[in-house]
């Protein structure tokens, strides 16, 4: 990797600063507390598909493993348990094994926020309000590449909404029965010509979503919302009454995945079980065997309030408002 200075990106970077300013303003007005959080942690929440950065603290003979946090969730939820109320983090997060591409940097900026007393669908309204606020403050400058008319500005007045079941049926011809039955789903994927050898349900889910559904989103000029995911794809989301569906949403702007949110799981026994499952999957996926944040489970016993948490890839959000097609175009210094 090399250090690259790109002063030509100055105008885009200024838009980055503008969006940052407006986001802080929005949350201040809504009464959220901004949390400054560490990025180095001695333990992490196990997530089966995220590779992490590992380092060591050294002092004479003392050596202790530390990890760069892939998300501030473990800190923010601890704060929520203390009763701090609505809060957010806007800062760096780190994900290993994600090479630079149009949409990824291993070191990126994450916006994560929690609102107490609401569920995932109510959070959809809050997110839309945030997007609309930024759009208005930046004079409606987000343009769609999908709209083929003179006025191709993206409108944040409403969502284009599909449940995952509706989207798979409409765009991929996969029925609800097939979607929620791993064996049937894999069989269906095979019949569609996908390689299924040694692929998991989650692998194929992501592949079909990206291949057949995502390219069809955002054509209306509104941001798109997908909701109600199979429970396999949501380690920290609350399940609905029948136990099959996770109360989780992902949203896209102009076809680009920008963020997601879910009603947070606050049953510590269920959480402990999923920690174990995710940790096992990590081993299977050959990921770094990091120290698991057991203190998180202990803290959960005190009771996480009913709340919904949202995570937004802040750089991607700015890409939309700066009308650039690659994340590195927002930065004055890139490590490429």
């Amino acid at each position, binding site marked *: 990797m090399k250090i690259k200075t790109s002063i030509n990106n100055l105008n885009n970077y200024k838009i980055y600063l503008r969006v940052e300013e407006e986001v802080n303003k929005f949350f201040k007005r809504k009464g959220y507390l901004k949390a400054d959080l560490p990025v180095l942690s001695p333990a992490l929440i196990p*997530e089966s*598909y995220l590779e992490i950065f590992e380092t060591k603290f050294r002092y004479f003979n003392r050596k202790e493993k530390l990890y760069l946090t892939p998300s501030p969730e473990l800190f923010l939820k601890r704060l929520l348990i203390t009763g701090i109320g609505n809060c957010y983090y806007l800062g760096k997060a780190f*994900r290993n*094994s*994600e*090479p*630079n*591409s*149009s*949409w*990824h940097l291993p070191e990126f900026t994450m916006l994560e926020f929690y609102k107490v007393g609401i569920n995932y669908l109510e959070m959809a309204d809050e997110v839309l309000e945030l997007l609309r606020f930024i759009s208005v403050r930046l004079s409606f400058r987000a343009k769609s590449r999908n709209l083929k008319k003179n006025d191709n500005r993206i409108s944040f007045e409403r969502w284009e909404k599909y449940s995952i079941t509706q989207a798979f049926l409409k765009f991929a011809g996969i029925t609800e029965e097939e979607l929620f039955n791993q064996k049937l789903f894999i069989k269906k994927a095979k019949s569609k*010509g996908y*390689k299924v050898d040694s*692929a*998991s349900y*989650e*692998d*194929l*889910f*992501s*592949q079909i*979503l*990206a*291949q057949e559904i995502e*390219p069809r989103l955002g054509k209306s000029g509104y941001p798109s919302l997908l909701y109600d995911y199979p429970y396999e*794809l*949501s*380690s920290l989301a609350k399940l609905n009454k029948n136990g099959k569906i996770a109360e*989780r949403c*992902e949203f896209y702007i102009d076809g680009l*995945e920008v*963020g*997601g949110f879910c009603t947070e799981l606050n049953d510590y026994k269920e959480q402990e079980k999923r920690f174990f499952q995710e940790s096992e999957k990590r081993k299977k996926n050959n990921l770094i065997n990091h120290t698991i944040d057991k203190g998180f489970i202990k803290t959960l016993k005190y009771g996480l309030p009913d709340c919904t948490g949202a*995570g937004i*890839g802040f750089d991607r959000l700015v890409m939309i408002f700066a009308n650039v097609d690659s994340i590195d175009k927002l930065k004055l210094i890139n490590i490429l």
Partner: protein
Amino acid sequence: MKTNAGNLKRGDFVFYQDTIWQVQKADFYSPGKGAALMKTRIKNILSAKNIEYNYKSNEQVDVLDVSSVEMQYLYKDSENIFLMDERTYNQFSLSLVVVGKTADFLKEGEKMFVYLYNDKPLTIRPPMSVSLKIIEAADAIKGDTVTGAKKPAIVETGVTVLVPLFIKVGEMITVNPETGEYTGRV
């Protein structure tokens, strides 16, 4: 040769649904929750059709072991272009569909690399730029001072290129053969 789809790069040739495709674009993508993907745009080397395909990044993909050989462009007819390997004097043909727009800008004797797989040509690697002489161009219209204004001109291969107003007949210009755009004066 097998590789992880996550290692695919522009220019690689892959088998997809039993036919050969060339990678035009490869970009890593990982959803917020779930498995990482390699988003690619691949071009069928027979029909020149482009499709978008998302591989699982850990999926094993057959990348063709291709050699590239410098060849001389001889001529074209209504369907093919003809090339010669200067070391062996073997002649090869490639369909115009595969070569695309580039064929319009090739001069006899021009050298370029051709990709071979099992001694059969797949496609050419278009030169970054070709130098061509202007054989016909209108004079600049006086008073037309719009910055970046262009006029049509005919180059020696017989095709029309949009050039800046100051370019005159007899001058040599450079063109990007893949897009057909004027890139400069020689």
